[in-house]
């Protein structure tokens, strides 16, 4: 049931449509609305998809000539209808009546025609509950650049290969607008802890905020800057700011802004955000609040430092239950350092849009040791049209959804870790022939 008070008075602009969500509050998820003039939502009455009146249909397309003249209504005519406030449903009906070829089309083609026109002229929206399924398919369809072209089925593989589940301690390093983080959070259901490693000034969670997670889910979400990983591993890490606090603040602000560019949201609802910025600028105008502002800043900084210490402590235990990487960076340096924080006998999985960096990563991990069952893979996804006697794969499919390298950590031999004497890595793993087991206990 939709009950976010934050939805109020939000004007949503989506695919040349605009509307207010006020009327949606109180309706169940999955409700379909019609957008009326004035941008108000009105629950749509269920109309029988295929009207029972016998439709006239052709048997094949021998009489169809595509001369671009089959539609007698012009653009101007249609615009005039719209301006008069004629409902989308009626416009589609008029289009059908004014189509000279409609009656000659086969029944199947007629359905297709109606569907296409309906989509174009009927302002209908359905409000669905956000989930990894919905958000990952939406991002892949609409904003693939923001998620490094990570296809949803590839994300699905990552969650399984990483054995992401409630009660674990996961390390997530992603530059996918927070989508991968959100997917991991959903699978953990608020149980366990997550450390998000981030480049630049702060973690990006634009997509994460679209999942509608309860507040408690964020209690066990920590973040740690990538730029401090080496110092943490080297034992020189300190949560105290390295430079003058003001300077750090400034540089943080800058890089944060830069990130914002690539992090903008596709017509998503982020309540309260605008409210926030309003408050701040109002505050800035008012000198009376200046002192409290400085104090606020100090408190914020102190809190940030405390959270940083907590994240560092979590990582420092070096017992994470898994590592999930999906970023625009070269995976090799990320894996070589972040794997140090993972306990033995735990899965890790790294996504890359390209295959070649993963080939390198594979080779370097083999040299490093401490990992087994390395697997480089890709998934293919094919959608089907299923109709009696007319089933076949859909005409087009995604050409690629990115690549995954996955594996399992094992205890690193003493002396092997970190020391430069690279004895030739004990060749691969024992031969791959399955042996005869007399005492197979299962």
């Amino acid at each position, binding site marked *: 049931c939709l009950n976010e008070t934050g939805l109020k008075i939000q004007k949503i602009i989506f695919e040349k449509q605009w509307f207010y969500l006020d009327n949606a509050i109180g309706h169940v998820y999955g409700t379909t609305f019609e957008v009326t003039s004035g941008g108000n939502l009105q629950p749509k009455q269920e109309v029988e998809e295929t009207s029972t009146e016998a439709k006239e249909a052709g048997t094949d397309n021998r009489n169809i000539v595509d001369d671009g003249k089959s539609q007698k209504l012009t653009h101007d005519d249609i615009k005039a209808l719209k301006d008069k406030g004629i409902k989308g449903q009626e416009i589609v009906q008029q289009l059908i009546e004014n189509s000279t070829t409609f009656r000659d089309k086969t029944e199947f083609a007629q359905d297709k025609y109606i569907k296409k026109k309906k989509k174009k002229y009927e302002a209908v929206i359905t409000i669905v509950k956000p989930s990894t399924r919905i958000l990952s398919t939406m991002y892949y369809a609409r904003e693939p650049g923001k998620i490094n072209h990570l296809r949803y089925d590839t994300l699905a593989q990552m969650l399984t290969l990483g054995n992401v589940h409630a009660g674990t301690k996961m390390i997530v390093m992603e530059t996918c607008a927070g989508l991968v983080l959100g997917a991991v959070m959903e699978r953990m259901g608020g149980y366990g802890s997550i450390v998000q490693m981030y480049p630049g000034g702060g973690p990006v969670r634009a997509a994460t905020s679209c999942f509608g997670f309860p507040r408690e889910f964020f209690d066990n979400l920590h973040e740690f800057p990538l730029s401090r990983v080496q110092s943490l591993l080297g034992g020189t890490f300190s949560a105290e700011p390295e430079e003058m606090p003001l300077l750090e603040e400034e540089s943080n602000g800058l890089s944060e802004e830069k990130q914002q560019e690539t992090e903008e949201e596709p017509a998503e609802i982020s309540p309260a955000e605008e409210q926030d910025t309003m408050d701040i600028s109002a505050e800035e105008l008012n000198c009376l609040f200046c002192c409290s502002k400085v104090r606020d800043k100090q408190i914020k900084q102190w809190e940030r430092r405390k959270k940083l210490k907590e994240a560092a402590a979590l990582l420092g235990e070096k017992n994470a239950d898994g590592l999930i990487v999906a970023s625009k960076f070269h995976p090799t340096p990320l894996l070589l350092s972040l794997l140090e924080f993972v*306990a033995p006998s735990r899965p890790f999985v790294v996504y890359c849009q390209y*295959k070649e960096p993963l080939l390198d990563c594979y080779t370097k991990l083999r040299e490093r040791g401490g990992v087994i069952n390395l697997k480089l*893979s*890709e998934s*293919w996804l094919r959608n089907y049209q*299923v109709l009696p006697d007319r*089933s076949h794969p859909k005409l087009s499919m995604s050409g690629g959804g990115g690549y995954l390298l996955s594996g399992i950590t094992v*205890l690193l031999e003493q002396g092997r870790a970190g020391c430069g004497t690279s004895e030739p890595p004990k060749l691969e793993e024992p031969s791959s022939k399955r042996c005869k087991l007399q005492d197979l206990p299962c």
Partner: protein
Amino acid sequence: MSFVEYGDTIKDGDTAIVFLGHESMFPVKVQHGTVTQTKYGVIRHSTDLIGKKYGSKVTCSKGGWVFILHPTPELWTMNLPHRTQILYSTDISIITMMLELKPGSIVCESGTGSGSLSHALIRTVAPTGHLYTVEFHQKRAEKAREEFREHGVEHLVTVTNQDVCKSGFGVSNIADAVFLDIPSPWEAIGHAKSALKAEGGRICSFSPCIEQVQRTCLAMEEYGFTEINTLEILLRVYNVRTISLQIPDLGKAAEDNSSTGFDSSNPSHQGSPCANLQQGTVQFKSGVPLREVVGHTGYLTFATKNLV
């Protein structure tokens, strides 16, 4: 150890995975006083396993070594004793995501088969969700119950021994999702619908044949399911190999002794340590597809039940 909770050390009664090498592994029930034979010799559970850390290298009696791994549903899927055809992790992944499963979800499944999917479902819905799985083959139902007990997940699953097409899932209006992997799923769509919550939920059916899919889609439509969508997912695995290719000798231009046009016109391998033009070869890393792969497992049909 349990399949839904990691542990650090190997304990008596655990199910552990003995890893011999790439793709070669098997599960073992850890038991005081027991020994397990491998091609590298004997593993003594009391001394070699119990108390050791998961992920340890264990040296067998003949000097070869193996790794002992903590079980996961994925490792189990790769190693479980087959009593039926099973679902593999690639299909399982997309099923889990498209059914929107997460901790707390209530799921109905039929048939249980060898429990490959069941283990993965249980992992995802734990600790607050539940799996109701229906299997009409009595031995298989019993064996599944036994495995769930051994794997520490029995509190998260109910195995029912009945015909799902006749008697349904034994529950109604409580499921967030239903999954079918039976020969005639269309006969169970009605039961699936009544197992799902009144406010709706998701359904998935797995079938190897397109004829099955057609009948299932019709049944789904008949029962008012929406968003009906059929797809197929395939895994492509690549072997990482270092390949060297010979450079063809195209001879030399009369006055030009700076060798063939190949290296001078191709800046990408200038200075690359892999290029060895003296020997006339270029080395590179490649991801090589396997010679033969699984080309089809089954079609997955997903749909949504809406509140009516």
